[in-house]
């Protein structure tokens, strides 16, 4: 019986794993992260590798604008297209008195110790806005970059797509290779107005000593569309996030797709939630998670149906590549109306031997076969992206995969 108790306690500890550990915020510094503005992203050539890995093109080719925050300073913010605003959050608050209504509106300031910290001691963040009727298909790039050791980055981001507008964002969070430890707290509030659309493609390119706590939410009005793509391929000390999209408007749509390749000692507790509040709204959550080495992944998904005729689907697939790694897949469906259609599929397993053998029977080596299978497993068709962005996303994905395999 004693043995059983130990097993149970141990199991409980494992389940609590990542999320129960709070980061000691005070151990990271708020000072010493100031930098001068730059007039071109090319000035950061010493960090070119880090920026490229996060999807940032220093030449700004095919971009509608760029934003770059280094540690605590917004060093670059420029829009190349009329109707697109790119500012630091601080500047935006000064410029738009109405912005008050958008700050801490869908992410409550007192949600947890991290939101409280950012509310009390914000260190910038981005403000991105497409004006009414402005459809910007060229992606804008934004980057939150940590270049100083032991820094605490407390950003608050606001993204607004006004009525009938469209905004495509590639955002990269990245860290200089010289940084051994850091903390990134990122609050993001997205507003998709009537008939507007945001696609948000985020690449996390952290390193093994960084703690990351994003807290984000999206509010979608009538016929609005929000598409979030998330790519995680480099190690992190710990990452915990549960972005929520609220489909408040009629026929609004939200989609989360995440690709997670966790290796080393990475600890990830990540999920996506869609609350279907508007009549006829739709939600889709798709995640692919690979755990190897000693990595631990908790992959969650939550679909909440609260209105008539809503439909949601959740798909979590996990692949285990080592015996010392862990994946927990937790799909949840919550229905609060009778006329509702929510579904989920979840599967966790290893690479099937017969798949490897099959590819070897075509003359591929065992390593090549495993590589093809992993690549295939992670390659979800990212729908709804303009062609240029789809190409960029694929490039980013291939590049990171190349690096880790």
């Amino acid at each position, binding site marked *: 019986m004693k043995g059983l108790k130990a097993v149970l306690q141990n199991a409980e500890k494992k389940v609590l794993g990542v999320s129960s550990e709070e980061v000691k915020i005070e151990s990271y510094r708020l000072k010493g992260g100031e930098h001068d503005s730059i007039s071109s992203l090319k000035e950061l050539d010493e960090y070119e590798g880090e920026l490229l890995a996060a999807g940032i093109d220093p030449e700004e080719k095919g971009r509608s604008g760029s934003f770059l925050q280094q540690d605590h300073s917004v060093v670059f913010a420029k829009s190349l297209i009329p109707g697109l605003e790119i500012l630091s959050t601080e500047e935006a608050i000064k410029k738009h008195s109405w912005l008050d209504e958008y700050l801490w509106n869908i992410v409550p300031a007192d949600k947890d110790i991290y939101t409280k910290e950012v509310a009390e001691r914000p260190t910038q963040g981005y403000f991105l806005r497409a004006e009414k009727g402005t459809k910007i298909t060229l992606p804008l790039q934004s980057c939150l970059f940590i270049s100083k050791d032991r820094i605490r980055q407390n950003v608050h981001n606001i993204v607004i797509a006004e009525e009938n507008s469209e905004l495509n964002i590639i955002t990269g969070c990245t860290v200089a290779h010289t940084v051994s430890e850091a903390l990134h707290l990122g609050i993001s509030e997205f507003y998709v107005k009537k008939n507007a659309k945001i696609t948000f493609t985020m690449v996390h390119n952290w390193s093994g000593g960084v703690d990351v706590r994003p807290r984000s939410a999206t509010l979608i009005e009538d016929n609005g569309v929000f598409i979030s793509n998330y790519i995680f391929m480099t190690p992190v000390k710990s990452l915990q996030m549960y972005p929520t999209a609220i489909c408040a408007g009629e026929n609004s749509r939200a989609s989360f797709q995440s690709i997670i390749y966790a290796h080393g000692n990475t600890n990830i507790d990540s999920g996506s939630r869609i609350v279907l509040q508007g009549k006829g709204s739709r939600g889709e959550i798709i995640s692919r998670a690979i755990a190897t080495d000693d990595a631990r992944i908790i992959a969650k998904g939550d679909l909440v149906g609260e209105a008539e005729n809503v439909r949601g689907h959740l798909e979590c697939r996990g692949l285990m590549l080592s015996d010392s790694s862990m994946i927990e897949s937790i799909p949840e469906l919550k229905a609060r109306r009778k006329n509702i259609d929510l579904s989920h599929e979840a599967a966790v397993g290893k690479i*099937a031997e017969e*798949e490897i053998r*099959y590819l*070897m*029977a075509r*003359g591929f080596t*065992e390593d090549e076969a495993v590589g093809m299978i992993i690549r295939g497993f992670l*390659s979800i068709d990212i729908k709804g992206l303009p062609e240029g962005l789809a190409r960029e996303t694929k490039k980013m994905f291939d590049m990171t995969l190349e690096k880790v395999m």
Partner: protein
Amino acid sequence: MLEIQNLSVEVGGKRILNDLNLHIGEGEVHVLFGANGSGKTTLFLTILGFPGYNVVEGKIDFKGVDITEFNITDRVKLGMGVSFQHPPEIRGVKLGDVVEQLLERRGGGDAKALARKLNLSEEFLSRDLNLGFSGGEVKRSEILQLLAQNPDFFMFDEPDSGVDVENVELLGGITNEMLERDRRPSKRQKSALIISHIGYILNYIKADRAHVLLDGRIACSGMTEEIYNHILNEGFEGCVAKCGKEGVRCEF
């Protein structure tokens, strides 16, 4: 091309093949008949080098090289190509990408043109390998990959099971072409082993020799038509009655 001598194979500690001998010369196509459980698939996977198929006696020479200890990849690189009966579904790996890579290995080629030959659309090339393929699509996809690979020695495991008559005709025609059956016998360089419970495919592929596998050994060998007719008339049991005696291999 392929020379199997005194081959005995165990799977999971159980003897499946027993002192089996088979010689397939250059340019020859052989058919291997046998009832379910006779060891056909074991022989197929042993020639291919699947782990778990333990050669306890004998050896396999391929193109004059003893490949008994080779892994799958090395055997295939030496010029072997196979068509599986039940290939696994591989999510996210596109058929077209595999075909492209196989063609690249030979210095390039047009995947779409090959697909068209098999009545497969461009859209089909973008599908995940074997995921949701119908019986006929599986066979055509396997043949498509073989076309791209262009090996010297082919093995087909039940190439006509689950395929409608129209498709069998199409596959038969293309397979004949792949195996250079349209050339004079002396000009043929491609060899093959076709494993068949007993199927229509033989109406389309002219095989040089046929063998009947019985209890892990080759019980009869001979001209394809004679063996085929014999099995059609008397079943595998007829072969057992005639040739099933201990260690005897009868020639038709």
